[in-house]
């Protein structure tokens, strides 16, 4: 469909056709292959700490040509560490995209919004295309826009949990109020959830565990691709009315009014 051909995801001036981004949690060659071939991924997250390895295990070797790398700062516990990891990624030749990921909690892996703003500001000033992973808070999102983020990546539910859009209401507020791509990250466990987020107006979906733990990787990757496209089409077409309580009467309640 033409409308989809012209419908690009634009992040920091770079255009992407695909709206599926592969996360970095659980890596394998098979997963990356499936994400690229069957889910159409053009942007693949790379955990710099996993890439910090010797020849035979280097994830950089798994990344096909033509794919844009999105190094993340996982392992960083504060802004300072995130900035160091981002710079290391650039030195390793991973380009200037970076996903800021700062976690001070090893149990739930929830992002630290305050440190994330600080790191985003510093990295944006340094020329990075910064995509911060955050807990969906409108004030924080506005601040991220102010300090130079290229996209905002709210979590749907705790990372790796496959629990779907637990923060749906708040993500919707970000979609409505923030003039940057809102990329739903973390917690998307099923294609239907990805579809729902796309229908809401999310610009893209990032997922990893949902694919990595699937029984048939290629099939699940392709299911995500279909779901994201379906959700995007629905969003672009303008979804119909939503009946929140009961059915609407074909005879209007105010039908008796004549004047």
């Amino acid at each position: 469909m033409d409308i989809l051909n012209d419908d690009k995801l634009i992040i920091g001036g770079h255009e992407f056709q695909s709206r599926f981004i592969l996360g970095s949690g659980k890596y394998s060659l098979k997963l990356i292959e499936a994400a690229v071939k069957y889910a159409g991924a053009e942007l693949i997250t790379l955990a710099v700490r996993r890439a910090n390895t010797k020849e035979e295990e280097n994830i950089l070797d798994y990344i096909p040509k033509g794919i844009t790398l999105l190094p993340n700062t996982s392992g960083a516990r504060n802004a300072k560490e995130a900035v160091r990891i981002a710079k290391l990624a650039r030195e390793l030749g991973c380009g200037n995209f970076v996903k800021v990921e700062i976690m001070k909690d090893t149990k739930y892996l929830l992002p630290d919004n305050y440190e994330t703003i600080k790191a985003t500001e510093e990295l944006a000033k340094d020329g990075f295309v910064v995509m911060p992973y955050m807990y969906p808070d409108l004030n924080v999102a506005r601040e991220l826009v102010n300090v130079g983020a290229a996209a905002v990546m709210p979590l749907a539910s705790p990372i790796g949990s496959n629990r779907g859009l637990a923060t749906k209401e708040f993500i919707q507020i970000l979609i409505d109020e923030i003039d940057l791509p809102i990329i739903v990250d973390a917690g998307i466990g099923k294609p239907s959830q990805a579809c729902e987020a796309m229908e809401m107006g999310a610009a893209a979906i990032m997922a990893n565990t949902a694919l990595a733990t699937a029984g048939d990787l290629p099939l699940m990757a392709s299911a995500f691709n279909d779901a994201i496209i379906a959700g995007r089409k629905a969003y672009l077409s303008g979804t119909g009315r939503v009946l929140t309580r009961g059915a609407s009467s074909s005879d209007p309640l105010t039908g008796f009014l004549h004047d």
Partner: protein
Amino acid sequence: MAENNSFFVDGKNLSKEALERKHKLENDPSSRTNHMEYMPGMEVIESDICDKVMSQMDSYDYTKYTAVDVRNALNHERCTIEDFKALLSPAAESFLEEMAVKARMETSKHFGNTVYLFTPLYIANYCENYCVYCGFNCYNDINRLKLNLDEIDREMSVIAKSGMEEILILTGESRAMSDVTYIGEACKLARKYFRMVGLEIYPVNTEEYKYLHECGADYVTVFQETYDTDTYEKLHLLGHKRVWPYRFNAQERALKAGMRGVAFSALLGLSDFRKDALATALHAYYLQRKYPQAEMSLSCPRLRPIINNDKINPLDVHERQLCQVLCAYRIFLPYVGITVSSRESKSFRDGIVKIAATKISAGVSTGIGDHESKYTGKEDNKKQGDEQFVINDERSLDTMYDDMQQAGLQPVLNDYLYV
């Protein structure tokens, strides 16, 4: 229970005075120091963790849990402390397969199919403690050795050539022979060869952990051996290790010093393993709540034979019980690393990495200075130090790597950055 093991062995080379002292320590409790009292130089920190752990352990009566409690625990979405207690109880033994299924699901959610590989490097086996079950104990008649920095460099280079990227540096517990500066120098050398450096040494003060962290170490492992203080007193008869609370607070001091992660363990078989397993996991659980940024890891060693005493064994902790403990750990603390050492057999390790464990050692030697001969087959006449315990899985890194891949797992050599 520990009393069922016969630990006391008199070495032939001990002097008459040493033997007398040893026998007195073994037989006369009044000759031993107060194991709950700090020795001079040991830092005291304010902490409520110990009280929390011990009150739970002391009140734990695992006989009261029934199949219904276990079933409920398995059905709950979040595993509470009460659920964990049920999963560790004898009533859960008949639910082992279901526990394994749930544990595998949790492992997969948090770690995917990855399994991390590492190797230990013992750089010295001098020890000032008399821990009756340990091959390094000061009365055990073994070859003692401390590697100098050149020798450490050589050993590390041999290990690094095998492809290993994570190393755990160990010493016997002797401040006199292996002081903190010596260990710090070993960490600096390790940073040259390895991406990740962990330490398993005698507990030290916060400032010393800070120094070791600056030298390149980021993870600290301290085994409490047993959380049962009365049994601990009977097994650790001499030396600074005898001070139970200083050891208990080691992980907290390490975290205060800036270490990224800490590891915990009881040596299963020394005391009541269900209570020890409960305390080990709660030690990590409560510390994680206090230091949420810290990475936590649990180990699960069982007693093994040592040089001069091949009768030592883990008593009632058979593989089924060990598996139960590990599944319960995983269900209660899905986010922690679980390490299974070469004390366990190939078949057990191959099985448990598919369920709960996330890290295993390979290319292991628990002796001193023998990596070159072990890794390259090159015989030399250099003196070697004897091992801490007899290992049960001798696979090299290459073999382990292949075996993990064959099993559908993804071996990972490094997932860490020193920042």
